[in-house]
């Protein structure tokens, strides 16, 4: 018997009210309506499906959340981990999808860089972004949350860097939710040929009460372009987080993508990287820390479509209390993707006996001249290491923190944005608790 009731507050009438309030081009309105129909006709995910086998949604209630686009919340923007320290070239802040703050350095605006609220840009330049938005939003095969996002997305972040422009300081985007609020933000990043940029996206807020983020990110890294992208999710522990993230890397382009998951009650993220052009290069760094009864699920996909592509994925997760982390990774090498170099590794550190990790790597290789490696590990903190550190004068808690810091160091060393690395080190250090029984 399913425990999820039909979402009674989400009626066709509510959707029509929302759709009519949007003031958008006809193609976008049509896309929203098609997506809404798909959302209604797609059943809630069932644990008999492999994708949802280990992620239990039965406590999730759509009717607890409202449509986007209501009045701007009275709440203040919650504090975020990064905020001022990284917003050098530009900053964008939304709260429940409503714009709170925006600026872009005049130098970059003059160079043709577009950075700001996506829904505003779509209204002002509907045809310019259509090719990037329409096919991606329409592609939601069988996924109820992707269809919901395509129907209801609002607010959102746009970064578009024109050909050859090199934005040499980071841009920062914060999507926040108020307690009980929801965010349906869509992030679109387009780097044209030879462009360079660094974009740091953060999610924060929601408190301990229920909140909802149903989002998507689409990234296009043009030929020869260079993008450093960071997604830092530090929601309150009551937020339900569903996100589809998709990057296409063209010939000789390079993407460094760091995804950090620290918050949320339940997070289900699909992260896809397509090495679409010859010589495309993607480095993916994952940092996960789960505690309490958090459930963090990340499904990654490295898709080699063209020859000489390189993908290097390293995920590190630490868990304590009764947390549950699921990592499902796949490298797929198409028949024409000869000379692919694909690497995928997921390491996990269990800090309590009641934490659980399911780490499942995968390879699907159709070419015959490739190098593909994958590995997964899960283990406890070794008592001997703790004893050794204690014998050098550290307290037990300090010793455990040191071991955890050492565990994450390999992935931290790959994060080339100092402020992001430092913030993650500090955040994880604060969260670590010692669960082991004292000896004797």
């Amino acid at each position, binding site marked *: *018997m399913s*425990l999820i009731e039909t979402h009674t507050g989400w009626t066709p009438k509510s959707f029509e009210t929302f759709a009519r309030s949007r003031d958008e081009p006809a193609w976008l309105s049509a896309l929203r309506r098609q997506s809404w129909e798909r959302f209604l006709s797609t059943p809630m995910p069932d*644990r008999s499906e492999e994708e949802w*086998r280990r992620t*239990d949604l*039965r*406590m999730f209630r759509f009717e607890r959340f409202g449509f986007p686009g209501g009045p701007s919340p009275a709440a203040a923007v919650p504090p975020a981990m990064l905020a001022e320290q990284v917003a050098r070239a530009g900053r964008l802040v939304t709260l429940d999808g409503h714009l709170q703050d925006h600026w872009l350095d005049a130098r970059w605006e003059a160079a043709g860089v577009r950075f700001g609220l996506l829904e505003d840009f779509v209204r002002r330049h509907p045809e310019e972004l259509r090719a990037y938005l329409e096919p991606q939003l329409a592609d939601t095969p069988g996924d109820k949350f992707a269809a919901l996002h395509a129907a209801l997305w609002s607010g959102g972040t746009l970064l578009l860097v024109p050909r050859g422009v090199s934005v040499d300081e980071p841009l920062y985007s914060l999507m926040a939710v108020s307690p009980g609020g929801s965010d349906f933000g869509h992030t679109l990043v387009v780097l044209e040929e030879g462009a360079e940029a660094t974009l740091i996206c953060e999610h924060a807020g929601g408190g301990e009460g229920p909140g909802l983020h149903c989002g998507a990110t689409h990234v296009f890294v043009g030929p020869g372009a260079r993008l450093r992208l960071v997604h830092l999710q530090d929601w309150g522990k009551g937020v339900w987080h569903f996100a589809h993230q998709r990057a296409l890397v063209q010939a000789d382009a390079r993407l460094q993508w760091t995804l950090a998951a620290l918050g949320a009650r339940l997070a289900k993220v699909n992260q896809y990287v397509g090495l679409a052009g010859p010589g495309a290069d993607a480095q993916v760094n994952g940092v996960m820390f789960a505690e309490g*009864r958090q459930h963090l699920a990340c499904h990654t996909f490295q898709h080699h479509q063209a020859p000489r592509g390189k993908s290097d994925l390293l995920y590190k997760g630490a868990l304590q209390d*009764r947390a549950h982390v699921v990592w499902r990774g796949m490298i797929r090498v198409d028949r024409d993707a000869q000379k692919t170099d694909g690497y995928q590794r997921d390491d996990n550190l269990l800090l309590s006996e009641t934490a659980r990790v*399911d780490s499942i790597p995968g390879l699907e290789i159709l070419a015959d001249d490739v190098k593909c490696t994958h590995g997964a590990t899960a283990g406890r903190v070794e008592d001997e290491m703790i004893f050794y550190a204690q014998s050098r004068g550290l307290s037990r808690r300090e010793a455990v923190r040191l071991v955890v810091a050492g565990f994450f160091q390999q992935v931290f060393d790959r994060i080339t944005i100092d402020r992001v690395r430092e913030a993650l080190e500090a955040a994880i250090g604060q969260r670590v608790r010692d669960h082991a029984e004292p000896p004797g």
Partner: protein
Amino acid sequence: MSQSPSPGPQYVRVCRVGDVPDPGKTVVEVGDRLVALFHVAGRFYALDDLCTHDGGPLAEGELQDHTIRCPRHGALFDIRTGQALTMPATQPTASHEVKVIGDEVFVRIPEE
């Protein structure tokens, strides 16, 4: 009018006795979690609705006497204690206190 005795703090009313056949089972929300509630031989028992082997939904399994079999891979649990009786489960699943007062069934929210 006399008031029914209170079950005590941290107890949540989940259903009426007659809502669950004997023998029978259902799933109820207790605080922040889903609990498999069993009604066998006139008594109620409550376990986390979670097989410790691979996270399967215990309440969807086969109930026989005081055992429940996980529908995914067949691990058997004792509904009275949560103890894992057969492979592939090796760890017990959490067991929760149940009180029946009059016609009402209460389950205790576990402390974390």
